[in-house]
């Protein structure tokens, strides 16, 4: 484990170093069904990449291919520049943290952590030192003689992490490792994983279906759907510039207003003409398109009779602690979500409101 934490962001975005993992045209078919369509992917050293997608999107297949647990139907895979496409799983030197932790029930915590070192024939004194170090890193030094079943879910998770970190794998894969934990513990473990990532400088590929988790942890997010890459980029980029309606819908909450491109740079909708964002892609007049606006960009004010802007009626108000979420139904029946801080003048269910947003905050996507 390198002593100094790496400047992850710069290394990732600069792309000067050769990639840690390089995937070229890799695909997996089961009979006639495509689990994963041919895909290219580069993961940079020290990067935290989250693979995000709904169940059945191919994210676990990708992870199993990288780990060597299944054979690809096509394509190849390079780790540190070396072709590892057909290397058996036990020779890949990849760390995997499984969804259910896969701790060996007949071995104690320490024996679990020692296991990968014994497989590598690490000499005895170093074996002890490294196991103690890894257990110390996850704060479990005191529990090393317990059996896994005697630990809580969070503790088992830490053992799984220690067992993975102890042999300093070139690449760590995590398959929904926090899925079985309750919300509070999950958030604590997210912080823990972030810290371990920073301290060890390890390259981590983290599979999840939880978009909040992906936003909180990642250097980059790989968004998958139907066995292919939907979009890849930093969390902020994907959130602010979703490449597709799927991306807009899957990450964060989005309002989608369908319509046709009209003359003079507007979107003709049943509720009126809406201005297009300035940097919108050029779509020919008459093409169907969708305008995506995040709830936090929608502002509401009480309607006055003479106002010609987009109007609607509040149908539901949900208190969420730091904010109200208001559901507004437009004349056409489309529902828009808006956020409103409790400090603002209260609006009640049934109130007529005018909706407004900065045109530059909207995203125009072909529909």
């Amino acid at each position, binding site marked *: 484990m390198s002593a100094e934490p790496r400047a992850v962001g710069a290394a990732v975005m600069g792309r000067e170093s050769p990639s840690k993992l390089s995937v070229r045209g890799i695909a997996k078919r089961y009979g006639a069904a495509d689990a994963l369509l041919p895909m290219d992917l580069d993961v940079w050293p020290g990067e935290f990449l989250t693979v995000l997608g709904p169940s059945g999107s191919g994210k676990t297949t990708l992870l199993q291919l990288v780990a060597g*647990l299944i054979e690809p139907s096509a394509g190849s895979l390079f780790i540190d520049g070396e072709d590892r496409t057909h290397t058996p799983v036990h020779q890949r030197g990849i760390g995997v943290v499984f969804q259910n932790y896969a701790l060996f029930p007949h071995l104690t915590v320490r024996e679990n952590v020692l296991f990968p070192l014994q497989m590598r024939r690490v000499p005895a004194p170093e074996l002890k030192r490294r196991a103690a170090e890894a257990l110390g890193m996850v704060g479990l030094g005191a529990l090393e003689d317990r059996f896994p079943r005697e630990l809580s879910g969070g503790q088992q998770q830490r053992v799984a992490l220690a067992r993975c970190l102890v042999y300093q794998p070139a690449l760590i894969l995590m398959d929904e490792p926090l899925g079985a934990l309750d919300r509070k513990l999950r958030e604590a473990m997210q912080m823990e994983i972030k810290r371990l990532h920073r301290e060890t400088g390890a390259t981590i590929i983290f599979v999840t279906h939880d978009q909040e988790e992906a936003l909180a942890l990642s250097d980059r997010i790989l968004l998958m759907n139907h066995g292919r890459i939907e979009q890849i980029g930093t969390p902020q980029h994907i959130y602010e510039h979703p490449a597709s309606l799927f991306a807009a819908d899957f990450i964060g909450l989005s309002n989608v207003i369908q319509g046709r491109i009209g003359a003079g740079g507007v979107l003709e909708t049943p509720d009126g003409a809406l201005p297009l964002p300035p940097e919108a892609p050029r779509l020919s007049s008459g093409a169907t398109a969708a305008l995506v606006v995040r709830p936090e960009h929608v502002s509401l004010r009480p309607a006055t009779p003479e106002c010609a802007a987009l109007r609607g009626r509040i149908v539901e108000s949900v208190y969420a602690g730091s904010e109200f979420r208001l559901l507004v139904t437009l004349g056409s029946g489309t529902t828009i979500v808006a956020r409103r801080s409790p400090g603002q003048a209260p609006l009640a269910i049934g109130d007529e409101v005018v909706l407004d947003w900065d045109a530059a905050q909207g995203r125009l996507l072909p529909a």
Partner: protein
Amino acid sequence: MAGPASAVPARRRWNALWLALPGALFLLLLLVLPSLQLLSVSLTDSETGEFSLAAYERAFGARVYARIIGNTFAIAAQTTGLCLLLGYPLAYWLAGLPARRQRAATLLVLLPFWTSALVKNFAWLVLLGRTGIVAGAFQALGLGQPPDLLFNRPVVLFAMVHSLLPLAVVSMLPVMTGIDRGLLQAAGTLGAPRAAAFWRIHLPLSMPGVASAGLLVFIASLGYFITPALLGSPQETMMGQAIITQVQQMDNLVFAAALSALLIGAALLSCLLYDRVFGLSSVSGGAAAPRAAGSPLRRAGLGLAASLATLFGGLSEGLARLLGGHRFGWLLPAYAWAIVAVLVLPLLAMVPMAFTSASFLSFPPPGFGLRWFAEYFASPVWMSATLRSFGIGLATAVVTTALAALAAFGLARGAGRLSRPVFLMFMTPMIVPSIVVAVALFQLFARVGLVATDAGIMLGHTVHAMPIAFVILLATLKTHDWRLDQAAATLGADRRRTLLRVTLPLMRGGLVGALIFAFLSSFEELTVALFIGGGLRTTLPKQMWDDVILQVSPVLVAASVVVVVLVTALFLLAEFLRPARRGRAA
């Protein structure tokens, strides 16, 4: 609910464990007490009835008996070792199959499991005999006289392993199926080659199953008498045979009791040993509690697994390198199918031999004929034996299922310190060799006039069938979702209607399974029938036994085929009615 009790507002909670009482009393009266009595009989003088160790002195003193005792333990130990060694890869292979194929392949192991030892051993007697398949093959190939295959130690071991291998496999299978194969994948990602992952992870985790298989096979082989009697020479005489001779020919109950006591002692000792290492409750497939991290036994086991991993890992790597990366992936399925074939083939091979036109047994049969079936169905002796077996089987099935269902219900719903003893009580018939049960019941029934009665045989069979019915029902009830009963109650159903409309329909598969398997175990039971039936109340297995001792006739093969067909049909019916794990397709 009538009576003053229902008027009291704070009704005392009634512990459902009481439901186990009838079955527990039944087993106490017909198994535990008679066995203890047998023990006390063994300590008396057969003439005067006073305390004496003469029987034991004779057992260990006389060369002939010392040799029989030695034989018994040697053969039982060898059988157990071979069953575990041969059965482990088969169980491993079965456990790794996808659910649907696993079920289909397991049927092929369970079918010989449910076919009686008598039929299986008789099949070998016929197939390996002078007119059997092997001899036929030698003649057809012009190899002259076939080697003498029968009446020696290897064939006794072979047939005993053939008989008991299914028991070993079905005992190991639940534990192996319960092992998360993801753990082996995890071991792979941590750097363990497949051999190391198997020896260091799979083997230790499967040990509870191996141990319970070993326990059950060892105890079953201790009391074996069919195989050595049919296929062995006098050199292979085992204690079971000696007990039968003492009771039936010498009329020396005291000496038989002493030999039985030795068998009980050995069985109990194995159970104690097992309990020390794994805990008895894991016989039922429950997970064993891990031992203290520092226990020397655990250290030694892990160390052994690690050295085996190194040894076989090195071997397989070396072999793979020599053979250019060939991993023998085909070897395990090929081995498994070969074993399954050997398990099933003798049962199938009997069918063509029964439909022979010849007046004696031969393979291949010279032509098709139904004469032996005609003789079987026309014979009043065979028919009365068959009908008696049916009658006793049905009565046994009903009584056993009723007692076992009450107990299983009590154990699933009740609680308390008595749960464990009650569970063990209902499993006891499995860990007492059946020959001991038979002798114990014989000396009890002789005093109450139940010898040579159908009721006596039925009571003995109920003892014999109790564990299997109990285990099936307990498993059904343990997976039952009791919230459904609560849901029925909130929807307005009273207790009786909840039971009739919700609980019992959901348990149907288990109840039918218990009935069928209790029937089968009675229908094929020989030992109890041999002692309690006397010469007068002959069941079908007893009739077959008498016949096979006298001469191997084609009628016997026809009767065996009838038994095999019936067992197969009932077994498939039970399998078909068994509730599917992931819900039945609508």
